[in-house]
């Protein structure tokens, strides 16, 4: 199954919208898209917002990709904001007990607000 990834420049930095199934086959595409953002970042970038509302499925490789992104953000002094987790993503976060580790926002609008 294909995963669609759209990256947009926003006031806070970058918004990455992920749509589809993030599994062992497609998580490398997500990792590459996030890596591209880190390579392109400017000094004014404050946050990377990832919209997960359209993710139909996420496995442990998807979680690993987000943990890697979080670690990179922390090293670079950036915020990683996860927005509008779909029910399958919420489930996998709950199972992995990661909800407290990430900054999670109930909607994309909330995640886009400068804080």
């Amino acid at each position, binding site marked *: *199954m294909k995963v669609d990834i759209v990256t947009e420049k926003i006031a806070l930095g970058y918004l990455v919208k992920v749509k589809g*199934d993030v*599994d*062992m*086959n497609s998580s490398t595409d997500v990792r590459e898209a996030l890596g591209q953002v880190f390579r392109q970042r400017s000094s004014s970038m404050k946050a990377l917002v990832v919209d997960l509302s359209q993710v139909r*499925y996420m*496995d*442990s*490789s998807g*979680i*690993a*990709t987000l*943990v*890697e992104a979080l*670690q990179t953000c922390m090293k670079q002094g950036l915020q990683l904001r996860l927005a509008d987790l779909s*029910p*399958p993503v919420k*489930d*996998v976060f709950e*199972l*992995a*007990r*990661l909800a407290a*580790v990430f900054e999670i926002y109930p909607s994309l609008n909330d995640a886009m607000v400068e804080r």
Partner: protein
Amino acid sequence: MVVLTIPSHPKFLYIVRNVIYPLAVNSGFSKKEVRRIVLAVDEACSNIIKYAYAGDATKSIAITVTDETDHFSVRLTDHGRKVDAAKIAPRDLEDVRPGGLGTHFIGAVFDTVAYDTDQDQGTVLTLLKNKRTAGPGAQHHMGSR
């Protein structure tokens, strides 16, 4: 009983998910339980691809799903490197790092996780989920290896 065989390439994992989902729904599990069953079976297949076959996409994984009165069972058969029981352990979730979650998911979702390496080659992994259970908490049974 439903039997499905897929090539050992991650691009076929969605087929497994699409087969397991309706079968688990038909077994009477809630939507959330169904999503978790699908996740755990997908993780088990991913582990076979990564560890038993070391990424060799030319092999196969056989998946047998059985719906019994009191439990839902998924048996995964591979012909790769046998599972090393000593190395199967879910990692500490407090240690936040990429990787190592698949085994935790499988154990958290299924009530019984049994690895059988008695055959000449490969491993048979049997996953059982009881119906009307109060909560998960897998019993791990390791066959001889």
